[in-house]
């Protein structure tokens, strides 16, 4: 399921972290958060669309999930 990660002008950023995480042998939120260097609550907020991460954290998440950034986050025109 894609999650919105914050309002932005004429569109919004959605992410597929939850799905990709599950595909990584059921990687938990805590595991990914630890590898990325954020708290589990912050990763939960990112997944739930309550917080749009910095580019640095977004790249780290994509790297840990073994996917290009554009497959993890995408901008959807509204």
């Amino acid at each position, binding site marked *: 399921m894609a999650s919105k990660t*914050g309002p932005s002008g004429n569109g919004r950023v959605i992410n597929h972290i939850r799905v990709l995480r599950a595909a990584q042998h059921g990687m938990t939120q805590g595991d990914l958060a630890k590898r990325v*260097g*954020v*708290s*589990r*609550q*912050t990763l*939960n907020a990112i997944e*739930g669309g309550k*917080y749009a991460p910095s580019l640095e954290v977004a790249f780290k998440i994509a790297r840990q999930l073994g996917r290009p950034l554009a497959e993890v986050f995408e901008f959807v025109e509204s």
Partner: protein
Amino acid sequence: MLPSFEERSVWVQLVGLGLALGGYFASAGPMLAAGVMHMAPYIAVFAVCLVLLIVVQIVGHIAAALLGGTDDSDERDRLIGWKAEARSSWVLGLGVFGAIGSLAFGIEGVWVANGLLLALFLSEMLKLALQAVSYRRGV
């Protein structure tokens, strides 16, 4: 999900500051109304409230850490802090200008000092409240 340590810390600060400085103004208000214009009684009350604030902060943070461990602040915590600071600092600014104006009009120093302290208290309380809301609603 248990709130992060940073969020729990915000609640500890909010409760501690509310109790300590709220208690101070609950005591200082009637003193001002009664016309007490010496600084010494206010300083004594403030010292007691300051000790209360320190005790509540220490005990509260120990309890917060025992409840769910500690973790370092991350970029979301910092962003929430910066935004809350930016949205609340006008209260302190208003208090400072109010104090300068009061001095120009010859208002008693005790009133000016308490007014400044009130502005600082309200500014911090607003900042902490905004942080608590941002943690729940999102940034």
